């Protein structure tokens, strides 16, 4: 007997038991006053019996192989047993229906418990991330010492098949990846920081409401474009442009460069920076601005000397959030920055990042006993904690700042 057939049958049974409960309570209602409305009696029968029989089925599925392996073959047995469980529970609840039966409270309790269970899913996801990343990363660190990983300067994850193979030494020094990641994030912030901040200042202090209403959604379009589209833009427009302008100045620029990836990532982050700065600047109390303007400062003087200092913690928090966004971004760098792990601060060379290497190591063949595949999880662990710390610090700064002015 198919699982879906069992489920459909149970749902149909639940629907009919709802009507049975409804009928009985309606007939009681004709003569006496009920505690709960008839629909609650009906729903209680349906929900209760459904839950109990589903619990029964899942318990059976969990333990059938341990307890009664000889039964596990007959799927019909579980079908009839679950129907039996359903009908017994329905009968018990049915018999309980009378004028003082508190069906509504019971239904509401079940609803609240269901909501509580749903809200614990977020915790389960975090645990899932931690378990999967930490478990595989520990296996990796048992093969490659953690100090070699964190402080090594040579990254070449291909494991040599022959002894004398050139170019693949199986070295897992992640420093070049970290420098590459921060180099690209740095370039992105050089673009996005000033542009985002200045547009936020203009929007909140100078622009009329009308221009604000037009411009703001337009800049927010930038935030809604998928990152893979930015990656394509980097490959097809920005990288060739940088290359040809480099040739014009006599520079030889690789077709995949940190500069191209960083520039495009900067464009992506502009709306992020500007919307956070906008919130933060708007939270600065009006009396601070009025005071400054009142003693004769110009608008720009007020902004530079009063509003920005007052909003500084919030702005820094926002920039930190933007950096964490840049560090975790994958598609732009994978398409535009390249795969070669160079330890360099030169933005015109190809670099690679933590996210790119995770992807490169995991796409294609995976063997879960080789350090090459497991290294991706170690990188994931580093990435997870890096962004976690950045976010924690940033959110705390922003929250403290908000409380200051509330």
């Amino acid at each position, binding site marked *: 007997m198919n699982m879906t057939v069992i489920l459909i049958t149970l749902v149909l049974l639940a629907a009919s038991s709802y009507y049975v409960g409804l009928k009985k309570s309606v007939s009681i209602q004709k003569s006496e006053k009920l505690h709960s409305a008839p629909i609650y009696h009906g729903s209680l029968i349906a929900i209760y019996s459904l839950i109990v029989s589903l619990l029964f089925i899942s318990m059976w599925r969990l333990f059938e192989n341990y307890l009664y392996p000889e039964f596990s073959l007959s799927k019909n047995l579980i079908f009839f047993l679950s129907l039996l469980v359903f009908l017994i529970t329905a009968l018990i609840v049915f018999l309980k229906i009378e004028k003082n039966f508190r069906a509504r409270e019971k239904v*509401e309790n079940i609803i*609240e418990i*269901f*909501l*509580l269970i*749903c*809200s614990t*899913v*977020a*915790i389960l*996801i975090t645990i*899932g*991330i931690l*378990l*999967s*990343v930490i478990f*595989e990363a520990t296996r990796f660190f048992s093969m490659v010492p953690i100090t070699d990983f964190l402080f090594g300067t040579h990254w070449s994850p291909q494991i040599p098949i022959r002894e004398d193979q050139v170019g693949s030494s199986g070295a897992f020094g992640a420093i070049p990846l970290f420098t590459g990641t921060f180099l690209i994030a740095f370039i992105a912030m050089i673009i996005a920081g000033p*542009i*985002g*901040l*200045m*547009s936020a200042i*203009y*929007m909140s202090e*100078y622009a009329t409401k009308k221009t604000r209403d037009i411009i703001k959604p337009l*800049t927010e379009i*930038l935030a*809604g*474009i*998928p*990152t*893979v*589209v*930015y*990656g*394509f833009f980097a490959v*097809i*427009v920005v990288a060739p442009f940088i290359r040809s302008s480099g040739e014009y100045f006599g520079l030889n620029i690789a077709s995949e460069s940190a500069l191209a990836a960083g520039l495009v990532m900067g*464009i992506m982050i502009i709306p992020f920076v*500007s919307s956070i700065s906008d919130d933060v600047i708007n939270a600065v109390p009006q009396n601070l601005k009025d005071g400054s303007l009142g003693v004769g400062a*110009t*608008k*720009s*003087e007020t902004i530079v000397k009063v509003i920005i200092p007052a909003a500084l913690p919030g702005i820094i928090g926002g920039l930190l959030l933007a950096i*964490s966004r840049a*560090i*975790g*971004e994958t598609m732009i760098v994978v*398409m535009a920055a390249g795969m070669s792990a160079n330890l360099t601060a030169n933005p015109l060379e190809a670099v690679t990042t933590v996210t790119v290497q995770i*992807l490169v190591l*995991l*796409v294609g063949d*995976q063997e879960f006993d080789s350090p090459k595949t497991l290294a*991706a999880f170690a990188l*994931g662990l580093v*990435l*997870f904690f890096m*962004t976690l710390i950045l*976010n*924690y610090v940033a959110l705390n700064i922003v929250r403290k700042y908000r409380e200051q002015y509330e």
Partner: protein
Amino acid sequence: MNNLKSRIAKEKRFKAYGIISITTALTLLTILFISIFSQGYTAFQETRIQLPVYFDQEILDPNKTNDWNKIKKANFNGLVKQSIRNLFPEVSGRSNKRKLYKIISSSAEYQIRNIVNNDLSIIGSKQNIWVLADDDVDMLIKGNINRNLPENERRIDDQELMWIEYLESENLIKKVFNKTLFTSGDSSESEQSGILVALLGSLYALLITLVLSFPIGIATAVYLEEFAPKDNKFVDFIEVNINNLAAVPSIIFGLLGLAIFLNFFEMPRSAPLVGGMVLSLMTLPRIIIPARAALKSVPPSIREGALGLGASNVQAVFNHVLPIATPGMLTGTIIGMAQALGESAPLLIIGMVAFIVDIPQGFTDPATTLPVQIFLWADTPERGFVERTAAVIMVLLIFLVLMNSLAIYLRKKFEKNIT
């Protein structure tokens, strides 16, 4: 102290910086759209060549069996080649002929096979059939290959150009709407490749995402906003978790999918089912946070009114608060789904990045998604694929625009609700 003049000048400069920043951002946005549109709009047309095909009984069905199972093994490739030769009878020599065959896509053979399969009575007759042109010819016709370049710098040599110009002068070559793009899967030949696999993959994955993350997300938001006890350590812990998950890089969710869904539960690789599950983990906080904001902005008088008339807490929430908050919660959900539609990094990790020709029939068949297809094709240097990549981006952006407009419409409705 600075004098007034320089202070005013400074003020003007400062204001100009602001305007420059905004125009820079908007210019970049415009360049992005223009470059994608200009690369991609030609991909919505394909080039077809009219081929006079003689469905020769000798080649197709020499024994007059009229049995498709025998006919399908016939030499359709030879039939196509013969038809091309009929078009240009003057071409001779082995290498010249081989070059001539190349102006037509290799899919012509299958197209003609299908025609015969649909109507066996066609055998023996002569028909003019529009077959797909090769991608190089396609590029030339669309103007992506410059005819005035010296011969050794373009992908079409002078002789091929001569043939094509003959076809043009006889009106035997034309551009039509590119149906192939929307009805076929991936292919190594750009003129035969399409996005149907990616479209269906995106659809299946998003359905799974919606089914999983919408109920759980809304339930969580309702619990935290309406029922959770205040100042409870456990509730605080849930909130911290949700806020952190919203900031976790998407690729980490891919690692979770790989380690838990694929390795531990042994679910199929490359399947939209797993893709949707991974996306739903990612989308969950993005649904919860705006849904809570929507619930919070419902005026407390609504709830208090219901409670005052004797409704229970659950009744007040479900019958009075939720209906008002629904458009607001849907806005957040749609935006979350739009982000999930554009996401690709975690899907690459769980193996939804593959060369898939067959149309997926269900949630567990291997498929790609639109963003992944963009990533795959962007890697291919051929001009034909560049054009198609930009076209997929345009299709993806159209979906995103539609979803976001719906979200904006619902937000307007919500704002009307609460005021």
